[in-house]
């Protein structure tokens, strides 16, 4: 009788998740909790970290089939891996983005390329560590600090690396307010950080309407591999700028963007299961991602300093780091660092120029990478 009772309780216990917990689950639950802590206590990109952190905790509770094939989170992940979600994110981002600062100061678009050295440093280091060239390319693109583009390029080059790459890309994007400022201060003098920038010219409605159409043509013509993302970005922006279809712009940049953000963050968090995520390869990718962000930030600031050697009207080099993309987080970091230095400095509008150019810089780098590796 007693034996039967014990075996019954053991069988019951075996059916609970508790019986299958191991140290890896605890570690990943800790990582998920840390993400939620950073979002809530430190206000680090809560829109990204809350969904990722929560899904990370849930998928590490044994017995939960949410991320298993056919589970709810699995469908969210399919939306990402089938490349449906990233273009929709770009549509929404385009609908809420004012490209005026970039149009108004075309010189600053150079920073969108200059701040992408991190991509190539990470790519070369990944190759040195033994990754294949397509895998190294996918890892390098983390340095573009553009989540949807990182997912897009990874799905084309090394789909099996999507979980660690997307987690690294989004986590570092959220942590940019912590990663970037020390590098920016290290590479600039007090005088440079205090450079006041001239007010930008007013961009006409006609220019704003022509811009997305011209960019969509150029990208589809020269970079077909990354055209879906940039085309949707430009469509969203056209909705915004024509002023005639406010409902579409509001939906794309509001409800739709919120919905796909929920799907995206849950999908990324759901890939953080201890069994698949805790590996040496993940550690290497996460470290390479950090290297990419550090070098990207540094190269952006240095590019701005080099530009100052040739410009009559100097630019504040703190906006250089915004060229890394990650709109608008990187621009906000530039503004905050400058504003802490001198409360009279208001750099956000100026930093948005290179920040937006960074989106194109990542798309261009990704497009060239795919073309050079023969991927369509």
């Amino acid at each position, binding site marked *: 009788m007693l034996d039967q009772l014990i075996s019954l309780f053991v069988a019951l216990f075996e059916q609970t998740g508790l019986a299958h917990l191991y140290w890896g689950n605890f570690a990943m639950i800790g990582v998920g909790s840390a993400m939620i802590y950073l979002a809530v206590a430190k206000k680090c990109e809560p829109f990204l970290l809350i969904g990722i952190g929560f899904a990370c905790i849930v998928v590490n509770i044994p017995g939960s089939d949410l991320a298993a094939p056919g589970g709810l989170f699995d469908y969210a992940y399919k939306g990402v891996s089938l490349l449906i979600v990233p273009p929709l994110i770009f549509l929404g981002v385009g609908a809420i983005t004012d490209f005026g600062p*970039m*149009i108004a100061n*075309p*010189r600053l*678009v*150079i920073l*969108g*390329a*200059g701040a*992408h*050295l991190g*991509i*190539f440093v990470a*790519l*070369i280091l*990944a*190759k*040195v560590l033994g990754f*294949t*060239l397509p895998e*190294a*390319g996918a890892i*390098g693109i983390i340095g573009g600090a553009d989540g949807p583009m990182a997912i897009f390029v990874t799905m084309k080059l090394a789909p099996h690396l999507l979980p660690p790459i997307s987690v690294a890309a989004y986590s570092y994007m959220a942590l940019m307010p912590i990663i970037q400022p020390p590098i920016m201060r290290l590479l600039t003098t007090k005088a440079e950080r205090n450079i006041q920038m001239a007010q930008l010219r007013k961009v*006409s*409605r*006609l*220019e704003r*309407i*022509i*811009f997305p159409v*011209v*960019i969509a043509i*150029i990208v589809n013509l*020269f970079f077909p591999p990354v055209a879906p993302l940039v085309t949707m970005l430009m469509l969203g922006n056209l909705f915004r700028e*024509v*002023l*005639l279809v406010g409902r579409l712009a509001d939906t794309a940049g509001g409800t739709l963007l919120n919905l796909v953000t929920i799907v995206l963050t849950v999908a990324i968090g759901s890939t953080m299961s201890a069994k698949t995520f805790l590996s040496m390869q993940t550690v290497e990718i996460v470290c390479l991602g950090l290297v990419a962000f550090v070098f990207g930030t540094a190269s952006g600031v240095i590019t701005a300093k080099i530009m100052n050697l040739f410009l009559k009207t100097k630019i504040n080099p703190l906006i250089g780091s915004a060229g890394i993309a990650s709109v608008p987080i990187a621009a906000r970091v530039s503004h905050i660092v400058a504003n802490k230095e001198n409360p009279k400095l208001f750099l956000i509008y100026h930093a948005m120029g290179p920040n937006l*150019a960074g989106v*194109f*810089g990542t798309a*261009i*780098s990704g497009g*060239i*990478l795919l073309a*050079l*590796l*023969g991927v369509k």
Partner: protein
Amino acid sequence: MTPIPDNVEGAFLISIIDFILSFVIISGIGVILAILPVVNRYWAIDEKDLKGGH
């Protein structure tokens, strides 16, 4: 097209080509942006009319 070798030299090669081409192409976009204001000489859009809806 000759495939890029899957080794460290290949990684250097792809990085150098990509980095330089990125500068060239983004500069091209910069040039287009610089000449964009020219359109204002030929046409102006009445924003009030647009905001009025269709």
